[in-house]
């Protein structure tokens, strides 16, 4: 039995320690907002927070999980508001999504960036987000939404 804390809840799973967190979230715990895109840390679709830091769950064996896990389903705003996290509000305001498949990962990377850097520059956003592939190429709006979310967090 491996114990994990996911979105504030204790979960224990009876799986090999080498099992990637991605598949535990998706197949065992039903948290399907975290996506499978490449399986080898090249696309960021599977990004979750581990101890508050953006982490590729496809390359994180559950045996190595160190810290609380937060997925898109557990992303909450400052006051736990219905609007969700500032990145989610910004994403909606700017109509960032197209197919949407990469967007959980994009928002998790963005939320992690903003937790560490309240006012990232364009270059800092690129550095933090370059690992998140979007085949629909929503990058211009992702960038704008990160800036917008930063403003929302400041307010």
């Amino acid at each position, binding site marked *: 039995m491996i114990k994990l804390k996911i979105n504030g809840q204790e979960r224990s799973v009876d799986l090999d320690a080498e099992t990637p967190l991605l598949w535990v979230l998706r197949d065992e715990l039903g948290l399907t907002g975290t996506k499978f895109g490449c399986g080898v840390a090249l696309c960021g679709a599977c990004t979750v927070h581990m101890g508050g830091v953006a982490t590729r769950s496809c390359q994180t064996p559950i045996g190595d999980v160190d810290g609380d896990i937060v997925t898109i389903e557990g992303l909450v705003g400052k006051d736990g508001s219905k609007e969700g996290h500032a990145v989610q509000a910004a994403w909606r305001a700017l109509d960032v999504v197209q197919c949407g*498949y990469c967007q959980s990962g994009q928002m998790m990377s963005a939320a992690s960036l903003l937790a560490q850097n309240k006012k990232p520059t364009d270059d800092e956003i690129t550095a933090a987000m370059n690992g998140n592939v979007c085949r629909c190429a*929503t990058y211009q709006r992702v960038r704008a939404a990160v800036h917008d979310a930063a403003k929302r967090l400041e307010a």
Partner: protein
Amino acid sequence: MSVLDRIRGDKPTDMNRRGFLAIAGGAGVGLMVGLKPFAAEAEAAAGGIVQFNPFVKVSPDGAITVVVKHLDMGQGPTTGLATLIAEEMDADWSQMRTEFAPADNVVYANLAFKAQGTGGSTAMANSWEQYRTAGAAARAVLVKAAADKWQVSQGEITVAKGVLTHPSGKRGTYGEFAEAASKIPPPTGMAQETPYKEPEKFKLIGKEGFHRIDNDPKTDGTAIYTQDVKLPGMLVAVVAHPPRFGGKVKSFDDAEAKKVKGVERVVQIPQGVAVLAKNTFAAIKGRNALKVEWDDSAAEMRGSEELLKMAKEAVSKPGVATATNKGDAEGALAGAAKVIEAEYTFPYLAHAPMEPLNCVVDLKKDGARLIYGAQFQGIDQPTVAALTGLRPDQVKIETVWAGGSFGRRAVPTADYVTEAVMIAKAIDGANPVKLVWTREDDTKGGYYRPFYAHKVRAAIGADGMPVAWSHRIAGQSIFAGTALEAMAVKDGVDDTSVEGASNLAYAVPNLKVELTTLKVGVPVLWWRSVGHTHTAHVVETMIDELAHAAGKDPVEYRLALLKDKPRHTAALKLVAEKAGWGGKLEKGKGRGVAVHESFKSVVAQVVEVTIQKDGGVKVDRVVAAVDCGTVINPDVVRAQVEGGVGFGLGAALRNAITLDGGVVQEANFDSYEPLRMGDMPKVEVYTVVSQQPPTGIGEPGVPPLAPALANAIFSATGKRLRDLPLGDQKFTIA
């Protein structure tokens, strides 16, 4: 004449309206346009929801659900079709909901294909009148129900933001009248003169300020894609495919695979060997532990170099088939003062949607249930029926959100759906099956944009204007060998190989376009903008060469040759104005232009590049001007063009599927790397004001990008980009 008669008889050539009526009849709606409830009894039982016609449902709480007949793979038809219904019903945007239509090749046919399917950038164009008619029809009976209840005349009732009001002070919502409206017979004598609104009255169509309808589920993780579907008892299947196209299983050893915890079954299917497991990770591990010997006796063994050589040889000779022959191109070339000649090559390209291919099948004796991002139900449903011995109506398809497609989910052979069904058959339907392709499977799985070679010889006269254009194209046909070949290939010409070149927009008096179709055992498919992905590049870079040879400005040169093409002219002028065409550029920067029509829309783009210190190319800015007819959702149009620019740019910069001895060399996003944020230029999108019906927007943003980029590189370096992709070529500043 009643509204219904007018719809029926007014414009006999109007396929959209007639199509709607045929469809409504086919659905057993009775006479028409949903003025009788469609399946109302069944639906009314479920929470009092009333379905007024195949496209509109109203629930007692006032929610209006639009039944979306097209797959939404990011291009936005859920938003677009909901906009059309909301507009005609004068609904409030917040009361709109959507659901994907079931498979029904008659009721939910794409009126452009006469079969259910999404593609060719037709989603809004083919639905434009159909969905507005459906909305207007639903509105009419709901208003009548209110009029009956209030004992007033219909004409005195107004609807705004989903609220019905009467000057007497009476107010109500659609939800309140849904049930009563469901019992109203077709009102053959409606007073309303037009079935739908005049554009001046639009509150949503063409307007800014309301948001995509899929924002919520796609930002909170609740949107369900195929990959997220889980049925009771379902097994996940991962398949070992032959390394070469056309290869087969010779033998396999599954001893190690079966030792993997969670692996339940290993079965051979025509496509390879499938490992079925309780979860995805076990299925992947099991597949990796399989030992398979392959039989390559019928496999494609050639490599990319050989294939490209074959294509280049083909274009060095006259084509096997002639697509266009106007005037006497060869004669004019022979006598011309100046001939410019160039050859081009284009690689195979994978669609690489963010969600790798997958499909869920639950196969039972008396029916099959499939759940997936279905893009071509009109093909998939009969294909599954034939594979299983079921009738098409026993094959139920539930469409879910697709994580991209770019054409990959609409396949004439229904390849991935077939694979899933064959697995389900191999286990006798004992469990529901979710077929999952890994990224590597997806990259190596074929159905690529075909490789092509082109050769153009163009002559200019003393005034610098073109007098002759000979254009030879060689490559694989998308339709050859499929069930659609007879319909799509005419006189040896598959239009998807030549479209965009065979109908050259520029006024050139002598034009010959020839095609040599090559047979290669690598499956090919339409890839966002299909033939235009390569023809636009050749046409738009060659015309640029001619402009330079003539010593003329590339925009002015094009305009002079587009005198009878008002939409091209408008887009080109708009893009030139917005981009500041002709303005001074610093050394090391370049600016290029291209304009191209595809899917009945015209897009012009100006690309600005900077040559980096190391000689690499950085794309700084792309300005696009679009004529896509009436703009339904301005922000979706912008998003599609932004996305099309990014999609085209990634491919132009660095994507190629290559084969070595028949084996695909690329596997994941390292060897087939999509555009990343750091590569994304600033994109500005402008639209040409138009009153014409809407035309395509999902694809037309792609074709002009690569040639405009190539022309920009030329303007900075004096070098032409004729072999794609750009790769890591280095340039020196001219």
